[in-house]
């Protein structure tokens, strides 16, 4: 038990942080809440380093301390810190500000549970925990859009979650265990396997916003505060991928899931970019773009067990995705939610414009940016696993994505609209943008340092 707890230090610290934040929130000391949260996130990040390469499990296999969960912490915790800073810049001074911070940290805890899940129950709890927190976060503004978004998100989450649980219940029947590592016992029971798998894909797919489980995403992002949209688009989404990777690693590939996920992957990226192509609301556009990015991440999942590049691919691209998507959302927070708000940005705020271009190019996958490195791994993994056609579709979609993102770049070169010239970027956001920029550029160039 002591050993197990020592491995769980980052999670424990974070849980304690969350409690402290709730306590501080009772005193209505929002800044204190934020400070505690940031400190806790930093501490948890640091505590992750010693157990990064532990490669073990705790509590009889129900939770895994392995390469995925380790890197997940290194990705999710700083990402959450950035999201907190963005949230502070957006909602400082509103009622229940501290609750939001606490909730964010709690949701991140759920995300960590997902990414280290070794047991079906942990998956279920992770999905539900992140879900519940997210519904509330989306509803934070309490205006019509916010409540509508939360309501849709809730309905979608509840239904898919229930379907997932129903499907997963069959796995228990088939294997006599709730451990993911015992899923191999399901060989010979294809129907049970498929039912549970379908449940898992539905539940995690909704979380990660694959097609056709993504419908909530644009609405929820649009209704939520922008910082929360950014948070949801990166943290809970990547966590779902980690959970999917944890579960599928133990499933035989003959079960057919690689092909099914490949189909979903292709559909997701295509659908996402097609829909993004016609958006005029920047948040919605980024929402669809993040749907499409899920398709790419899925390429790594498809190759699990068939390519050594699969896990590094998921991890690297997830890291890249967190950095560049947070960066892009942060710029949107400064600029405004509509496409026309970008008019003339290149003239009025050249640095901001360049940052946005870098993020968008990275999202497209232009080297030597971080996003390219991640995509490279993913493409390699997919091709190694024999899914050349998927890689081709991925490449074609990269072209489409260029069209999507160029729609943002082009107006920046226009004459400024006038009103936008006055806006200024809050200090916190500048910090977030700078950090994201450094990650996007630096980690792309120094890709040799990443796990291979």
């Amino acid at each position: 038990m002591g050993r197990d707890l020592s491995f769980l230090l980052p999670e424990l610290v974070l849980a304690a942080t969350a409690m402290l934040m709730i306590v501080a929130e009772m005193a209505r000391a929002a800044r204190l809440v934020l400070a505690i949260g940031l400190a806790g996130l930093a501490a948890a990040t640091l505590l992750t380093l010693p157990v990064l390469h532990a490669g073990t499990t705790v509590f009889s296999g129900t939770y895994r301390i392995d390469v995925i969960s380790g890197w997940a912490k290194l990705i999710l915790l700083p990402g959450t810190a950035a999201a907190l800073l963005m949230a502070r810049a957006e909602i400082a001074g509103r009622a229940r500000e501290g609750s939001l911070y606490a909730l964010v940290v709690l949701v991140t805890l759920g995300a960590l549970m997902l990414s280290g899940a070794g047991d079906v129950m942990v998956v279920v709890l992770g999905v539900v925990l992140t879900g519940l927190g997210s519904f509330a976060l989306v509803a934070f503004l309490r205006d019509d859009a916010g409540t509508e978004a939360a309501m849709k998100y809730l309905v979608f989450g509840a239904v898919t979650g229930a379907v997932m649980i129903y499907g997963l219940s069959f796995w228990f029947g088939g294997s006599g265990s709730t451990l993911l590592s015992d899923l191999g016992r399901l060989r010979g029971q294809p129907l049970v396997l498929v039912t549970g798998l379908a449940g898992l894909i539905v539940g995690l797919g909704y979380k990660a916003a694959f097609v056709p489980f993504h419908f909530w995403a644009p609405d929820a992002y649009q209704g939520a505060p922008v910082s929360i949209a950014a948070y949801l688009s990166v943290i809970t989404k990547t966590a779902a991928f980690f959970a999917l990777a944890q579960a599928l690693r133990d499933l035989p590939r003959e079960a057919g899931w690689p092909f099914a996920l490949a189909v979903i992957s292709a559909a997701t990226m295509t659908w996402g970019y097609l829909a993004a192509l016609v958006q005029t609301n920047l948040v919605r556009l980024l929402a669809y773009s993040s749907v499409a990015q899920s398709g790419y991440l899925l390429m790594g999942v498809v190759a699990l067990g068939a390519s050594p590049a699969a896990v590094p691919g998921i991890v690297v691209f997830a890291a890249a995705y967190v950095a560049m998507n947070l960066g892009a959302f942060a710029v949107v927070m400064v600029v405004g939610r509509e496409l026309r708000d970008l008019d003339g940005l290149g003239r009025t705020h050249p640095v901001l414009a360049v940052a946005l271009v870098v993020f968008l190019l990275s999202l497209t996958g232009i080297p030597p940016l971080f996003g390219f490195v991640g995509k490279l791994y993913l493409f390699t993994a997919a091709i190694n696993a024999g899914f050349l056609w998927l890689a081709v579709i991925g490449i074609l979609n990269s072209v489409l994505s260029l069209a999507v993102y160029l729609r943002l770049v082009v107006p920046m070169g226009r004459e400024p609209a006038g009103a936008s010239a006055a806006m200024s970027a809050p200090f916190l956001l500048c910090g977030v943008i700078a950090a994201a920029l450094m990650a996007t550029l630096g980690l792309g160039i120094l890709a040799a340092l990443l796990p291979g």
Partner: protein
Amino acid sequence: MSIELAIALSVGAGLFGVGLYGALSQTNLVMILMGVELILAAALVNLVAFWRYLHPDVMAGQMFVLIVMTVMAVEMAVGFGIAIVRFRSRGSVEMEEARELKG
């Protein structure tokens, strides 16, 4: 396969079907949540039946049941929370009225 297991699982299937119908057909948020409760109840029935008739010595099954019950409860709680805030804002929790966000 024992007949009891079949009966219990079939009941679960029935609850699932009804719940799915409800979740898809209802216009009211609360009613949709009721459909969700029924689906979760189906999962409960499944889990208990699997535990009883296939793996009585695996207590993880019962544990799972507890977890699902927790899920039912917390989902209801947050669901009501959101229903309240929506009701305050719009005076209704009809899903058909929630069409501001689309495209």
